[in-house]
């Protein structure tokens, strides 16, 4: 699914506020998984809802459309190279199960690498990966990306392998 929407009428759709209040946290969460930053994720979500507000996307497809648009737009931000790596993951790295209690610096650097690796994945794989890990079901990811549910598993599986390979390949080279 493309991020850009066909030019809609100038009027803002009537159900925008209702959809916004329901879906905004989820849309921010999708973008945050890509960008790792709340501020940037909220910027992306705002951008996506502005486009949605003037689109004619059917209400029943709104959440899927918004999530896919958020994933694409966030990946575009990553590739624009103008963003700063985030500290979100730094917070996540403090959980007690991490044996890396003394590893702050390396952890921060690794989180930056995750973003770089995501940017290098094939776009469809990256989007499927982010949507699935954002809690969309296989059926929802399938509908949003126009795939069969069976292909979702294959696409996500390939994305996870590719992510691991990307992280390994670039672990000591950049």
């Amino acid at each position, binding site marked *: 699914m493309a991020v850009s929407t066909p030019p809609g009428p100038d009027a803002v759709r009537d159900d925008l506020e209702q959809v916004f209040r329901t879906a905004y946290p989820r849309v921010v969460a999708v973008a945050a998984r890509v960008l790792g930053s709340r501020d940037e994720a909220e910027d992306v979500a705002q951008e996506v809802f502005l486009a949605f507000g003037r689109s004619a996307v059917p209400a029943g497809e709104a959440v899927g459309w918004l999530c896919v648009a958020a994933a694409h737009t966030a990946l575009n931000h990553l590739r624009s190279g103008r963003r700063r790596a985030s500290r979100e993951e730094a917070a996540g790295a403090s959980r007690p199960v991490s044996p890396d209690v003394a590893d702050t610096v390396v952890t921060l650097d690794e989180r930056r690498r995750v973003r770089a690796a995501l940017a290098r994945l094939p776009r469809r794989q990256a989007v499927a990966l982010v949507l699935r890990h954002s809690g969309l*079901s*296989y059926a929802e990811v399938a509908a949003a990306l126009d795939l069969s549910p069976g292909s979702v598993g294959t696409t996500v599986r390939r994305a996870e392998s590719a992510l691991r390979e990307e992280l390994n390949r670039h*672990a000591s080279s950049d």
Partner: protein
Amino acid sequence: MRHPTDGTLRRLVDEPAGVADTDREHVADCPVCLSELVTAQREAAAAAAALDVEVAVDVEAGWRRLSRSLAADDAPGVGAPTRRRWRSLLRSPAIAAVGVVALLTGAGAAAAADWLQIFRPERVAPITVTRDDLLALPELTAYGRVDREGNTDVRDVADAAAAERATGIAVPRVGELPRGVTGEPTYQVRDRVTTFFTFSAAEAAAAAAEAGGTLPPPPPGLDGSRFRLTNGPRVAAVWSSTGGVPALVVARTAAPTVDSSGTPFETARDYVLTLPGLPADLAEQLRSVSADGTTLPLRVLSERMTSSSADVNGTPATVLTSRDATMAAVVWLDGGLVTAVAGSLSADEVLAVARGLR
């Protein structure tokens, strides 16, 4: 029967109800598929950890912002850093300070003669930070150049002996497993990782100028100073659980140390602690724990964890407990090695494991 596809195995990891009974039954009896399933589980868990983010969203504020944009017909530009973001970063050089102090206290082993060892921890101590502080942490690369040597990949090895051969560190053996933790652990190792940081006054000033602010002048000699941080090697024994979170982890790593090309530890530390915006209580915590370069600050995220003191067979230790009481960890430093016992356990249980290590 044909093996199910890798996509089917992947779905079995986290949406098994969507997989046909015949495929499930096949996998349960097929060593090849079970092995593939384990790999899929591991990679799914790794991806989940890499992508894990929790963000608190203010829907009302978001709606007000969208309403203003709609009214002004003023869509935000794609990818352009906003002034607000730069300002928020500048307001928290505090956080840069946390990063740099963490760097100063984060890793390293002196070897070459032209390096001055400026930090070798002998104990750990908790410092409390908030999630907002961590969220605003700017990149170290804004302050200079960061290079790294070594493979950060965590890899499985066959057994404890292989882990020791790979790292030179003996894996502590658990005397008695806590109730509910069963089976044999998997052993993981990671090589030593060396990070070099070169402070650049020009880059730091440029970062500040871009944000519309001014950094305090660095002390003489800091510009161009190099710091070398070596972390690890590390070994870990991991008992898994069905939920994806390890039931028990026993990890041991060479204590991180830091070497400098000339700048004394106190000089660098005092500089970062005087950067504007550093919350006074955090500065005070960092100043006190880093007074003599022998205490490793253990970051405690105040929203998620609480810390307390304990001892492990006579060695002072720090106990971390998650506020939802689902996880606990105990960390101590002895003889140049940091040891951590953590898991989906109570504080008493991790302490019992720690005290029973052989």
